[in-house]
């Protein structure tokens, strides 16, 4: 927009118009708010996610406190596998930061490598999760069994969908990295950053889910 601010010529706008008009602060931070649009957008989205999972955690607390007996997670769930999964997911939070830092520093190859490692971590998490699921289902322990399993499946299932969503974005970023990094380096790095923020949130949800479902 700033580029056109000094002219009355409508063609400056009309020219760009038919493809994409230029939205201010898409890439650079607005001085008085200190963020670019995408970053504020992802924080707001995460705020709504907090409300979504907050409602589910509240549901769990309410159902558990009002239940005459509620199984302890460590007695019936696979704690070692879930512990391993916790480490896998925390590791992926580190690798996504490494990817972003390398893109910032101009190391396209290393950045892509770390993105790929992050994607692999997500994949590993989903594999381990599906092993847990299939074991339980083969023992006929399904959501309809009781409210413990109902909350377990819904909360970890919704979390798993979030992991899957993150993986799709990582795959997209890896596939388009060369093109985007060449043309719009800063914008691409920003994309990695906001995806990373989302990924940290997905981790954080698991950090809450793990003790509440498996340990307590």
């Amino acid at each position: 927009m700033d580029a056109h601010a000094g002219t009355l010529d409508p063609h400056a706008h009309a020219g760009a118009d038919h493809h994409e008009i230029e939205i201010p602060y898409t890439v650079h931070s607005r001085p008085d708010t200190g963020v670019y649009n995408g970053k504020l957008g992802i924080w707001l989205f995460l705020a709504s996610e907090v409300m979504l999972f907050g409602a589910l955690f509240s549901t769990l607390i309410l159902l558990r406190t009002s239940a005459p007996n509620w199984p302890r997670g460590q007695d019936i769930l696979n704690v070692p596998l879930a512990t391993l999964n916790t480490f896998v997911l925390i590791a992926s939070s580190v690798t996504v930061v490494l990817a972003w830092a390398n893109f910032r520093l101009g190391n396209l190859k290393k950045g892509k490598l770390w993105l790929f490692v992050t994607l692999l971590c997500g994949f590993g998490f989903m594999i381990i999760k599906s092993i847990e699921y299939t074991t339980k289902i083969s023992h006929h322990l399904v959501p309809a069994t009781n409210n413990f399993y109902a909350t377990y499946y819904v909360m970890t299932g919704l979390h798993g969908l979030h992991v899957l969503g993150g993986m799709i974005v990582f795959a997209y970023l890896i596939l388009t990295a060369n093109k985007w990094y060449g043309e719009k380096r800063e914008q691409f790095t920003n994309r990695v950053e906001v995806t990373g923020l989302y990924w940290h949130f997905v981790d954080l949800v698991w950090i809450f889910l793990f003790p509440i479902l498996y340990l307590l």
Partner: protein
Amino acid sequence: MPPQRQIRVGNQWMRAKDAQRALEEALRVQREEESAHGPHQSFISKYVFSIDHKWIGIQYGITSLTFLLIGFSMMLLMRYQLAWPGKPFPMWIANFLGASNAPGGVMLPEFYNQLGAMHGTVMVFLAIVPLAVGAFGNYLVPLMIGAPDMAFPKLNMMSYWMYLPGGLLMMSSFFIPGGAPNSGWTSYPPLSVIATHGQTIWILGMILLITSSLLGSVNFIVTIFQLRAKGLTFMRLPFFVWAQLITSFLLLLAFPPLEAAAILQLMDRVGGTSFFMPSGLVVSGAPLEVAGGGNPLLWQHLFWFLAHPEVYVLILPGMGIISEVIANNTRKPLWGYKSLVGAGVFLGFMSFVVWAHHMFLTGMGTAISAFFQTTTMIISIPSVIILTALLISLWGGSIRFTVPMLFALAFLPMFGIGGLTGLPLGLAAADIHLHDTYYVIGHFHYVVAPGTIFAMFAGIYYWFPKVTGRQMNEKLGKLHFWGSLIFINGVFAPMFIQGLAGVSRRLYDGGAQYVHAKPVLHTNVFMSISAFLLLAAQVPFIFNFFYSIAKGRRVTSNVWDATTLEWSATTSPPLAHGNFAVAPVVYRGPYEYSVPGHPTDFFPQSEPDETLPAPATTGGGLLPAGAVAQKEI
């Protein structure tokens, strides 16, 4: 000679008149070029999957007005049955409804329940909110803050394309076996969990609508924070923009718990879980085979955690529209702008801690009731502040009784009735008597129908010239206004009488089989006839709307002599995409009307102060009129 007022255009200084002329000339040339070169965009990308906030706003507007009419028609069918229980419909309506819904022309109770649930759902989620936020917000917010578009145009498009399929999915439930959802718009379990398949469609539709509103609200907040024009500080924002900002926060934070609740109910219905299903439930004489241990009240908490802030989502944009219309038509600044903003923000916060006042009769305990009763009384304070500020704004103004202003003036007492009748419902003791009676229906319809919907009408008449470059017919507008005002009161005022007499809101026959309803039963006929006449009163509006698009009187860009950016810094209708030929700069607050010493009675936000010295341009003098336009183009 008085000093000439000057405007900076790029790095040129020129008289306001010249700048205006240059701008219009530039736009005329642009339009000519566009039509000469043919459309640069395909029909699909321009009109179907458009990313221009203005066109998306129009899409939202047309769709939501259609749903508004559909929701209204559902209510008319119900009102016919309530006034004359068991009387067959006229043949053509009976044929339209089909034998499965109205055998022999007489509406089945099951179908009445479907209409009841769908009237609420359609009106709240498919008509009013998309109209208030999707249409008005989308079209006006970027223009009012001097932005070229929303911050995320593609998300904006996606938001509409989640809303429309969500709406169509909801409506499609009428055509499946068992018909539409029939557990009320609140979908309380256990009833909703054991209900017909329509309820599953309702849940899936809601998930689409929630996603749509999430995309929209993120977009609005980012746009308002990030894309404000230079000089447009938060306390210079028009109150309409503030209202949209607060509304977006409510949508952002209140809808996700309903999404969670919808997922849980879907699991209960499809996955056989028992989140909302208590143990030992017996349905039709047979024990229900579920694991049990769930809690039906949990749904109510999650639902009302959304649905109470939703009430403010319904009313805040309306208040924003009314503020703009009142300031413009009294020709003076709004009284207490800061109080309005403060009250609006406080209202937003408080709306998250009042939800359980819908649940006083669920047996949740007196301590919790006392808490929510207190917060409910507190939240009435900011509403009163807003209404009072708008009322005092009229004082000493030279009021122009335009059609939008008539609707705005009617909004004040109508919303007042709606708000004041809410107080007894917010007090737990009084609510014991009034809960689930027609009193409740009367209360919230006064807030939403002659409240919000009147505000929407005011907005449509007010911004119609902005969108089309033409004005709606004044005489037809007044006919529409007076008809609507009289008959809408005819519909809703008797509901208070029925409610105080204890008539339940959910009766298929309108209370005919209850002795205590006998003395007030005759009001059913009066209300229904008023409702049919209310439909008749909308005919001039519908005609006027389409007629004026084609044949309305052409008007100048700033037809109402308004101060806010959407009128003063761009033409009507605005540029195809990008909104502003020149990025506007804001110099003052939004309501600088009748400024002493100013030559006109309005002082646009984007007009520099007269005292600002014009920098010496080459040649030292002003360009002759028209010269700039020719030179630049």
